[in-house]
C-alpha cells in the first residue's frame, strides 16, 4: 500500500468505515508527518499531538460502536484564529500570546462533533492581516514548495496568507485538511499558490462565533484541502446556522458531495474582461484560457461578462476592512485578557499595551481605520466606500443574469520569497486583486489547483458563485479538477 498521507479524506474515511484503517494509525502517521513538517516550515504555533492521540482513541471507540461521524478520525489543522477551549489561541499576535479561551468556536465544535481530529493550531498573518504569513509575531512559515529556478530554490518562499500555516500543512501533507478564514482572499490566495483547494463560502454560511474578528462584515470561515471532494466534505461539516452569530443565515446546508462529478453540460461560465489586468503574467492568462477551454470541452458555454467596478474593489476594501478592524481591535486594552503593559495612568496603560502588543501591519490598519472613521472624514471615506461596495455587488448580481458561475485567476503571481513585497504596503495589498471583490459582494469562491508554472510553482483558478450556491461551485470545480489532473507535490512532504 502507498503511504497513508497519499489518501484523501474521502478515501481514508471509506477505509475506516470498512475497518481497513484505524483512526489511531492514521493520526499517528500524521503526527509523525507534522513533527517533520514543523521542523521544515514552522506551520504550527501550538501543536496538540497528545490531545490528537486521545481524540483518535475516542474516534476508534465510535467506529467500534458503529457510531462514527462524517469526519471521524480525519486529522486536520486549525487556523490559530479559531478559539479552542483550553488550547492557547494567539491570532499570531503578541497581544494574545498567552490567551487560553474558555470556550470553543462554533465551527471548530462542529468539526469535533463530526469526529475530526485536530493536530494543532497553525499560523497566520497577525489577526489575519496579510498575504504572506510574515506579519505573524512568531517565526514566519516557510512554504514546502521551492522554485525550479536555482536562485528561487535557495530563497524561502511564502505559503501565502493569511491562512499560510493551513496551506503549508495541507500541501506538505502533514494535515489532511485545514480550516481557514477569508476576509479579502486569505483562504484562496494561499490555496492558489500552494497547489491546493480552498473554498470561501457565502457570507453567513458559517458561524463567526468564536473566530477572532478582523472585519466582521467580510470575515468568513472556510475549508482548505487537497481535493474538491475533501473540501466539500469539510465545508458541509463546518457550515450551518448558529443562533450565536446574528449574521449566520438560517438556510439548509446541501450535501455538497452529491454535486461532485455531475455534468456541467449547458452551464454558462462568465469570463470577466476586467480581470485581464495590465501586467497579468502571460502564463497565468494562459492557465485561465486553458481552464475556460476545459469547461467548454466538458459541455459548458463561456460568456464574456463585465464587472465594471473591479478596479475600485481594493481601495474600497482598504477603507472598510481597516475601519471595522479599528473598532474590533479596540477590545485589546490590557484589562480583560491578553497583554498588559503598565503605565502611569489608565490611559497610559492602554497606549502602552496596544503600542507594544500590535505589529506594524496591524497598527497601520488600526490607524487607517481610526482616520477614516474620525469626525470630518467619515462621509468622505467610510460612507463613500460603503456606497462603492454596493456598486461592486450590483456588478456581480447583474453578471449572474447571464451566467451560472464566473471563472477568474485567483492571484496575480506564483509564490514569492519571504521578505519580498514588504517595502511598500500597497504592493502586498495587490496580491488580493482577484479575491477581494467576493468578500465585498459576500459571494462564495473556490480555488482549484491547475498546473505547475515554468518556475516549478503551482497556480490555480478561481470560480465565483451566486449567493448560497456553493453546490454549483463544487460541481464546476470538480469538472475542472478532473480535466486539469493536477498532481504536483512540493519537494518537502511530511
Amino acid at each position, binding site marked *: 500500500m502507498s503511504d497513508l498521507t497519499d489518501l484523501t479524506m474521502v478515501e481514508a474515511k471509506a477505509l475506516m468505515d470498512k475497518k481497513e484503517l484505524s483512526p489511531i494509525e492514521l493520526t499517528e502517521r500524521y503526527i509523525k508527518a507534522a513533527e517533520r513538517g514543523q521542523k521544515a516550515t514552522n506551520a504550527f504555533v501550538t501543536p496538540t499531538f497528545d490531545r490528537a492521540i486521545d481524540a483518535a482513541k475516542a474516534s476508534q471507540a465510535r467506529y467500534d460502536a458503529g457510531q462514527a461521524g462524517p469526519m471521524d478520525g480525519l486529522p486536520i489543522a486549525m487556523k490559530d484564529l479559531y478559539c479552542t477551549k483550553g488550547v492557547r489561541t494567539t491570532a499570531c499576535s503578541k497581544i494574545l500570546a498567552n490567551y487560553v479561551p*474558555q470556550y470553543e468556536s462554533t465551527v471548530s465544535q462542529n468539526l469535533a462533533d463530526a469526529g475530526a481530529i485536530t493536530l494543532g493550531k497553525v499560523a497566520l498573518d497577525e489577526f489575519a492581516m496579510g498575504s504572506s504569513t510574515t506579519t505573524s509575531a512568531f517565526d514566519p512559515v516557510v512554504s514546502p514548495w521551492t522554485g525550479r529556478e536555482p536562485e528561487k530554490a535557495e530563497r524561502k518562499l511564502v505559503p501565502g496568507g493569511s491562512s499560510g500555516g493551513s496551506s503549508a500543512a495541507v500541501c506538505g501533507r502533514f494535515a489532511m485538511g485545514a480550516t481557514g478564514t477569508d476576509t479579502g482572499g486569505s483562504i484562496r490566495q494561499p490555496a492558489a499558490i500552494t497547489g491546493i483547494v480552498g473554498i470561501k463560502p457565502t457570507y453567513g454560511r458559517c458561524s463567526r462565533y468564536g473566530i477572532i474578528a478582523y472585519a466582521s462584515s467580510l470575515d468568513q470561515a472556510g475549508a482548505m484541502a487537497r481535493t474538491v471532494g475533501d473540501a466539500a466534505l469539510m465545508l458541509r461539516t463546518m457550515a450551518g446556522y448558529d443562533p450565536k452569530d446574528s449574521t449566520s443565515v438560517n438556510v439548509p446546508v446541501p450535501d455538497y458531495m452529491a454535486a461532485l462529478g455531475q455534468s456541467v453540460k449547458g452551464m454558462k461560465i462568465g469570463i470577466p474582461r476586467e480581470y485581464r489586468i495590465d501586467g497579468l503574467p502571460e502564463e497565468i492568462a494562459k492557465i485561465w484560457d486553458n481552464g475556460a477551454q476545459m469547461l467548454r470541452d466538458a459541455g459548458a458555454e463561456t460568456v464574456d461578462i463585465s464587472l465594471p467596478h473591479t478596479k475600485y474593489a481594493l481601495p474600497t476594501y*482598504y477603507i472598510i476592512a481597516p475601519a471595522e478592524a479599528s473598532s474590533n481591535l479596540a477590545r485589546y486594552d490590557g484589562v480583560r485578557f491578553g497583554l498588559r503593559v503598565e503605565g502611569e495612568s489608565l490611559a497610559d496603560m492602554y497606549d502602552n499595551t*496596544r503600542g507594544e502588543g500590535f505589529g506594524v501591519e496591524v497598527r497601520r490598519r488600526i490607524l487607517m481605520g481610526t482616520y477614516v472613521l474620525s469626525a470630518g472624514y467619515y462621509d468622505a471615506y467610510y460612507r463613500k466606500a460603503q456606497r462603492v461596495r454596493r456598486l461592486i455587488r450590483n456588478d456581480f448580481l447583474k453578471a449572474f443574469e447571464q451566467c451560472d458561475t464566473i471563472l477568474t485567476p485567483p492571484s496575480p503571481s506564483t509564490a514569492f520569497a519571504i521578505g519580498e513585497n514588504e517595502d511598500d504596503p500597497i504592493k502586498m495589498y495587490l496580491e488580493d486583486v482577484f479575491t477581494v471583490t467576493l468578500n465585498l459582494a459576500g459571494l462564495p469562491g473556490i480555488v482549484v489547483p491547475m498546473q505547475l508554472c515554468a518556475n516549478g510553482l503551482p497556480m490555480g483558478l478561481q470560480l465565483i458563485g451566486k449567493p448560497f450556491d456553493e453546490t454549483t461551485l463544487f460541481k464546476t470545480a470538480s469538472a475542472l479538477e478532473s480535466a486539469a489532473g493536477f498532481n504536483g507535490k512540493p519537494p518537502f512532504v511530511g
Partner: protein
Amino acid sequence: MTIDVETARHISTLARLKIPEDQLPSVANDLSKILAWVGMLDELDVTGIEPLANVNDGHLGWREQDVVTDGGQAQAVLANAPSQKADFFTVPKVVE
C-alpha cells in the same frame, strides 16, 4: 490628502496606540500613500447609491424569548485577566 506627523500623532491618540516619536514620520508617510491610493474612489459619482453594510440585507429577527441562558462563570471570565481581585478586573487608579 496627506497625513503629517501632527495628524499621525493625533490619530494614534484617538486609537489609544502609542507610537514612538521617531516612527511617526514613516507612519505618516505610509498612511499618506494609502490615502492617496484609495483616493481613486473620487473618480466615481455615488450620488443616490445606498451604502452597503450587510451583504445579506439581513433583518435581525426578534428575540421571541429574552431569557438568560448563561452566566455565573466569573472564574472563566477572569481566567485570562492580566490583573484581578475578588472576582473583579483591576485597572490603574482613575480617581484621586
